[in-house]
């Protein structure tokens, strides 16, 4: 079974630029999560999708962050414009219909200069 795929693995941008991350969950997994993990901290939930609908985006900074999962499969997370404090690892996870265990991708490490 293929795992959760994310790209790119690394991204360096300057503040005020835009960036997008892509996630392809495990096949058949209806629930998809995006997390932000700042160095030395635990992952913080940004947004949760169930199929192509948003379940929880209460912690997503909507003035600069957006996310979509148009066909209920892969998802993109965008930051526009980026700030220095957005430097973090962005993790994508998915869960199957009957499960609670989250399967994580390798993450995208974002550095904002």
């Amino acid at each position, binding site marked *: 079974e293929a795992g959760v795929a994310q790209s790119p693995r690394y991204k360096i941008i300057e503040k005020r630029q835009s960036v997008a991350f892509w996630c392809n969950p495990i096949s058949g997994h209806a*629930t998809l999560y995006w*997390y932000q993990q700042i160095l*030395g*901290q*635990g*992952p*913080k*939930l940004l947004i*949760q999708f*169930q199929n192509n609908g948003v*379940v*929880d985006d209460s912690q997503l900074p909507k003035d600069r962050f957006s996310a979509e999962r148009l066909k209920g499969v892969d998802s993109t997370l965008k930051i526009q414009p980026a700030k220095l404090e957005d430097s973090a690892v962005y*993790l994508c*996870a998915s*869960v199957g219909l009957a499960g*609670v*265990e*989250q*399967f*994580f*991708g*390798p*993450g995208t490490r974002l550095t904002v200069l």
Partner: protein
Amino acid sequence: SQQGEEDPQALSIQEGENATMNCSYKTSINNLQWYRQNSGRGLVHLILIRSNEREKHSGRLRVTLDTSKKSSSLLITASRAADTASYFCATAPSYDKVIFGPGTSLSVIP
């Protein structure tokens, strides 16, 4: 906050020793999960314990849950160098959502 807090923040032990990490939380939970994160394999689910369970085992892992004290512990027995990683307690207010604590950094010295 619902967030669990792990204790200690960092732990260093010799290979073969046991490692114990604790997690405390503040509000009711559906379940509690432990995850491991290292540079090689990313974030990996280790074990889940439901709110009506008191103890679970998986290989060298033992997890306990005391809902009256709102606390959990993770015991790794006979530790190996490969156990070196950060360990996160994730409290679940509902079946489909978890909130991660700041983690415990474990170093196992060969």
